[in-house]
């Protein structure tokens, strides 16, 4: 297990580093890679020695350090957040198709955030923490509705879960549409944000998301061994000493909290939380002690690339959610077909 973690983790870190440098170098303002490096090196040494702010900054440095860099970090954080949440949901619900998007958590969180934005009260109550908390509350509500709708005698079937997710998504989406229709001045902003975007995000957003991802990720990782036992079935896990109900609640709440925080900075980005844990399972097997940390790492790389594609492939900025859906939806369809086949074989 250690060997696998070192191998794939090491490869992931290298890949992440390369992706960061490449993504920083690509953009509408053409800045040569050499300059990018020297700017980063410069900023790094300045930051280490405590010098900085007063030094005159070139436009290129501005673009790299204030526009591209925070956006790159944010993309990684959002990807990590959604992937950790997705892996946790899949483990605890023993359902391969569970993720923040299919469980309605993303659309629920979006509703809370959109509500705060459209009424312009997002900085009043708890300053910058207001939107994530509102998103968390509505995200949790929609998760509870989906689980309630999907469970039959305490059992949780894939098909019913997806149906319940669709119902909740449609309903919450309609409320968001209503909000948009009522507040026409903000319309474009909310619509674009809803499709998922990291445009015009800066360091404050990074600072906002980091504590949620870090704390949530650590709690989730500490439960990795327990999630492994869930794979044996809830009753078997209980007979092995797992407090099933408490673990389930913890994972669902932490997952929702991380997803809500991600949604409040980036809007709804689909399929990341679904695709990454599956790819990791294909690479390293079912052990959550590997799947969780590697999902965070590769999920970050995935969204970083999706975002880079979103901002450079056309002359206009594409919504990030559109790019991840183009990549993720075919994968989701493939999973569904495979799941169906397995079900037929078992019969």
């Amino acid at each position, binding site marked *: 297990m250690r060997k696998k973690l070192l191998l794939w983790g090491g490869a992931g870190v290298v890949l992440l580093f390369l992706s960061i440098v490449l993504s920083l170098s690509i953009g509408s303002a053409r800045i040569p890679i050499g300059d990018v490096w020297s700017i980063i090196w410069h900023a790094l040494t300045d930051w280490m020695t405590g010098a900085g702010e007063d030094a005159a900054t070139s436009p290129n440095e501005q673009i790299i350090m204030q526009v591209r860099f925070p956006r790159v970090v944010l993309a990684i954080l959002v990807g990590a957040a959604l992937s950790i949440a997705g892996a946790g949901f899949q483990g605890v619900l023993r359902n391969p198709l569970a993720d923040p998007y299919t469980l309605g958590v993303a659309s629920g969180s979006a509703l809370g955030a959109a509500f705060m934005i459209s009424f312009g009260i997002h900085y009043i109550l708890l300053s910058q923490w207001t939107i994530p908390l509102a998103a968390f509350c509505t995200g949790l509500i929609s998760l509870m509705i989906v689980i309630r709708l999907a469970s039959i005698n305490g059992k949780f079937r894939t098909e019913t879960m997806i149906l319940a997710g669709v119902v909740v998504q449609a309903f919450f989406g309609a409320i968001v549409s209503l909000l948009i229709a009522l507040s026409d001045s903000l319309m474009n902003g909310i619509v674009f944000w809803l499709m998922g975007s990291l445009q015009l995000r800066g360091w404050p957003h990074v600072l906002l998301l980091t504590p949620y991802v870090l704390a949530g990720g650590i709690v989730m990782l*500490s439960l990795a*061994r327990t999630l492994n036992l869930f*794979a*044996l079935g809830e009753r078997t896990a209980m*007979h*092995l000493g797992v407090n099933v109900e408490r673990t389930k609640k913890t994972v669902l709440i932490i997952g929702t909290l991380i997803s809500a925080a991600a949604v409040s900075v980036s809007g709804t980005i689909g399929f990341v939380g679904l695709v990454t844990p599956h790819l990791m*399972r294909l690479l390293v097997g*079912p052990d959550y002690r590997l799947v969780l940390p590697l999902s965070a790492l590769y999920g970050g790389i995935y969204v970083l690339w999706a975002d880079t594609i979103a901002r450079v492939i056309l002359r206009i900025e594409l919504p990030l959610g559109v790019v991840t859906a183009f990549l993720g939806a075919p994968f989701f369809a493939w999973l569904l077909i495979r799941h169906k086949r397995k079900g037929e074989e*078992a019969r």
Partner: protein
Amino acid sequence: MNERLEQRQSILVADQVSKTLGHQLVLKDVNLAVRMGECFGIIGPNGSGKSTLIKLLSGADTPDSGWITFRSQQLSAYSKKQLARSIAVLQQEALPPIGFTVREVVEMGRYPYQNWLGEEQTDVEPIISGILSELDLTQLSSRPIERLSGGERQRVALAKAAAQQPELLMLDEPTTYLDIGYQQQMMEYIRRWQGRNGMTVIAVLHDLNLAALYCDRIMVLHQGRVVETGTPGEVLSADLLEQVYGVRPTIVKHPSHGVPQILLQGSMEPVRRIERTEGAG
């Protein structure tokens, strides 16, 4: 053997236990006392409440009224981890088709002994290898569960239970989906294990002959009530079985062990074929 057993103290006691599921009374005033080191069988027809009783005895569910005590302490007073260190449960359908290897699943049996980092004080390695070789799983140890047969999976589940190092093993119809070869192998493993460390076994069994062969005492459950408890010789009479199962079997003595074995009567009337009349259609 029985006299010796009678002097032993009870490890698990149920006192006037009742349970209602939905609107149906599943168990009514069940009393039992399982003695340390014995193999205690629970038999009864479908729907007699056997599985519910095992759920209550293992702490997976709580009774509506009555008490269950393990080592003279309320079952509910133990934490889930404490319970998992003392009681292991083997269910009917052993393991789902998962990608974990045999060895990984057996190691999961150590969960109740591990701290939150997954470490424990004793060196687990010899324990795990010992169990694997004892159950003839060494060859399969790196194979994923999803690529094992039903009998092999059930053996892995038993190995996982062994890794828990329990004082009490509960079996909920563990041989249901196994052929007779695996059935006997399974019961022999358990008996050998019992002989080595004096573990107590409570087994819900469907197969009366298997129960007669391997259990020291048998309890008969019918419509949620205890009908009879005693040695196989005392309990397995044609009258009692007819009362409980609704058919009257023939009881014979096992030629080498002397325990009762059950033969079904059957009517054995020749099947009358309905002659097809030609040209009717």
